[in-house]
């Protein structure tokens, strides 16, 4: 098991898709609305070596109740500017598109956190602050201190993409099983 601590640097370049890691330190949540706001107004935190977490937590009275990952693919077209600014890792679920795989190349990694595991994630997190609170609970940028968050390297900095490999195998399986024209519905 590899233990990562923020701010991240070139150590992320050594990771390979499928590696199990833990991450400790400061992470910033961002979903669709926060990405759009940051593209317009700028990134409110120091992006060099930073980690962006695709998450809209449940927060009550300044306390993180639960905080699992959201579907990263919604941010496929909104991610390039973060990597250009020096963000070294994205955390989310479900993987990201080919354009993001290219943007990460030589610079950053995508780390998969088990979807739905919001109680487990929050047990390893502490809420430290917030930007863009007017966007609402789900869409604000929450500043979180993470302690050994368990993650899998989904996309590495060399084009290695666990999700794409699985998708391609699934496609082959699908066409082998449903090859008859009679069954074709789309």
């Amino acid at each position, binding site marked *: 098991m590899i233990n990562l601590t923020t701010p991240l640097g070139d150590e992320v370049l050594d990771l390979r898709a499928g590696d199990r890691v833990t991450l400790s330190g400061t992470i910033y949540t961002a979903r669709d609305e926060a990405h759009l706001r940051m593209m317009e107004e700028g990134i409110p935190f120091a992006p060099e070596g930073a980690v962006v977490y695709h998450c809209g937590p449940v927060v009550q009275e300044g306390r993180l109740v*639960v905080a699992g990952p959201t579907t990263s693919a919604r941010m496929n077209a909104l991610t390039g500017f973060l990597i250009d600014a020096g963000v070294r890792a994205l955390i989310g679920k479900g993987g990201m598109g080919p354009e993001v795989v290219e943007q990460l190349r030589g610079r950053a990694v995508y780390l998969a956190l088990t979807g739905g595991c919001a109680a487990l994630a929050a047990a390893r997190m502490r809420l430290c602050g917030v930007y863009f609170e007017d966007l609402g*609970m789900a869409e604000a940028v929450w500043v979180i201190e993470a302690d050994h968050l368990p993650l899998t390297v989904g996309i590495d900095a060399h084009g290695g993409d666990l999700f794409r490999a699985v998708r391609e195998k699934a496609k082959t399986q699908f066409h082998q099983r449903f090859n008859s024209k009679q069954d074709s*519905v789309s």
Partner: protein
Amino acid sequence: MMVHPADSTLPGALADATERALAEAEIRLPRDVLAALERAAAVERDEIARSELATILENIALAEERQVPICQDTGVPVVYLTLPPDIPFTPSIFEGVREGVRRATARIPLRPNVVDPITRRNTGDNTGVGMPAVHVTPGDRLTVTVLPKGAGSENASRIGMLLPSQASGIPRFVAETMLIAGGRPCPPVILGVGIGGTFDTVAALAKEALLLPVDTMDDYEQEICDAVNALGIGPMGLGGDTTALSVKVKRADCHTASLPVAVNVQCWACRRATVEVRR
């Protein structure tokens, strides 16, 4: 679960029951779903998949222990009511359910997820135009069933207006839905499949199928489930044997020229609970 309402008026009793049902559903996974996950974890062969399933089981235990929601996407409220013959079907019934949703949002707490579809303005309390979605059917008892629905899996759902000659293509349509979805809907999933009816009722059937116990499948459901699992998408799209825990089918008769099919994708956190209101 049964609840004797603190508030004896009908809307008050429904608000109590809705709040109780949401708390139960959000915090404690139904035992049939938990058992299906445990069975999957016991037979899964892929190493990463085994680790994902172990994390899921740990999370379920932790949510119950800490009395917090299983997932931060606490969903939008989908509610099914059964009304006995002596209860009048009036607007106050809907007001009671709405009040229960508001209270649950503040107390459990739930993430406010309900927004205007265009301006994206959040209503703040998980109610709004057409929210909660409430479905009413006649019954012997007054019951409130909730199915809070997260967006990751809802967004991967699909409707197809197939041709009458394409009945044998239904398993293909369902498997294709998961091929397109990949890891986005948080597999292992449960697939609610509606077959027949009309464009609108087939989607309702698919969602109602998610209320059925997942621990039994008929031969047709098993055939579809096997086809989905053969894709090897695995937990969270990271690969493995476990892509679907269960497939449940509900049917209605349809037009001789139509074959509507709907697939409502549900993540592993198939949260549902029923509360009976004792009067």
